[in-house]
């Protein structure tokens, strides 16, 4: 009998945190499949470049955040995904405008990447992450910060 199983969940849209649904039930992909994940991220990257050329930075960010964090403990995969998210983050000029078209289901994962950005120590990255962090906290509340800190399973 499975020990920690995932119950059926009611879909409540923005309130259901994807990482909460995944925790404990999804098996982590091992190194062999890391290549498949990296390929997927490269594919994402091309899509993001195309969206940026069309001047759609928020769409690019959503694309970057989708499928994150990669269900793996492989650091290369996490780094590859971070590079792609970072690229999209740095192109955002209008932070308020971004939030008017970013669905709340992205809030928790975005918060995790903001903290990764803040930890780089790189001045332009930190400035941008801090600007977005302020607005995200206003929108999503302290609970969002709590969740990004408390989740040690699905890290970025």
């Amino acid at each position, binding site marked *: 009998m499975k020990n920690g*199983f995932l*119950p059926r969940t*009611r879909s*409540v849209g923005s309130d259901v945190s994807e990482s*909460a649904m995944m925790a404990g039930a999804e098996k982590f992909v091992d190194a062999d499949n890391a290549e498949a994940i990296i390929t997927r991220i490269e594919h994402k990257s091309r899509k993001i470049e195309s969206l940026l050329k069309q001047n759609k930075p928020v769409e690019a960010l959503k694309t970057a955040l989708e499928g994150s964090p990669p269900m793996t403990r492989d650091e290369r995969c996490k780094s590859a995904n971070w590079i792609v998210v970072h690229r999209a983050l740095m192109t955002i000029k209008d932070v308020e405008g971004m939030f008017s078209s970013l669905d709340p289901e992205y809030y928790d994962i975005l918060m995790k990447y903001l903290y990764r950005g803040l930890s780089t120590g790189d001045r332009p990255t930190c400035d941008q992450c801090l600007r977005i962090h302020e607005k995200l906290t206003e929108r*999503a509340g302290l609970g969002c910060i709590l969740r990004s800190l*408390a*989740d*040690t399973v699905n890290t970025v």
Partner: protein
Amino acid sequence: MAAVAVHQFVQCITCHAWSPDQSMIAFCPNNNEVHIYKLLQDKWEKLHVLQKHDQLVSGIDWSGTSNRIVSVSHDRNSFVWNQEGPEWVPTLVILRLNRAALCVQWSPKGFAVCRWVSKVIRKKHNSSVTGVSWHPNNILLATTSTDGKCRVFSTFIKGVDTRESKTGSSSDPKFGEQILQLDLSSSWAFGVNWSPSGNTLAYVGHNSMIYFVDDVGPSPLAQNVAVRYLPLRDVLFVSEKMVIGVGFDCNPMVFAADKSGLWSFIRFLGERKESSSGPKSGSQISEAFGKLYGQSRQGLSNDTVEPSKIQGAAHDNCINCIELLKQKGPKTKRFSTSGMDGKVVIWDLDNQHDLREYL
């Protein structure tokens, strides 16, 4: 105002419990004692001090059926106190725990969970058990733990317990058998509570989430609700469709289920300084982050308050315990909360008209 009475007893309270007629309250003032107070002519008088534990008393429950008090402590012991005349006489209950006991609850029929199940629960839990709750049928027991999981056990004993089973299963579960393990939270879980009918289970995670589970059994239906605010520590069902959560925001939060059974946050119960959905949400946030973002906050200088205090709130520190009180009528719902500010606050939902539909 939903808070109808605020009593400042001591500096800090870890847990509290009411006598069956609610004329007396027992609580631990953050030390190794249990204090019993009685309301005599509008004033709270300290009647007894129960001193037997060596360390912090972390859980107290007062049985509604037998007028006995059970207390558990970090010293890994549990005492059951019986009132014999003017004195409260303790009986030591050997729990055989390796670690501190954190919580205790009398079952509806009068069995304290620590007496019965400590040995069995110990096997299944590798981390601290932070909360226990008896199902109204006196057979199922739910626990939450610092490993983030919520577990439901059966305490059914053949020949002793009569089972009114709707599902009519012919194979009764064994005593201590784990019926269900919920792995919804990746951080510490607290505060588990069953709905009055026993159909729904609710518990909270330290990651600012609250979990609602229906159909507890082989195929449960779970709903994870992300909380905007600081984490909760305890929850209470005041009706089938309404849950009160309390925690680090020092203000009870109301959650309710709509007609389709979807749970969501309705509002805070107590007074709150500013509207939480406005752009300058909460002076405490702006205070703390003002320095982080390095911007001047002239507009809020009049509202500057200490980060941990919200003017007009009943509690000014973390609420860690919530208990249901005896109701005055069919629709009125009253409960009490105690917290690290040493206060016990009585709340009444009677004049909260927007919440009446959920009661």
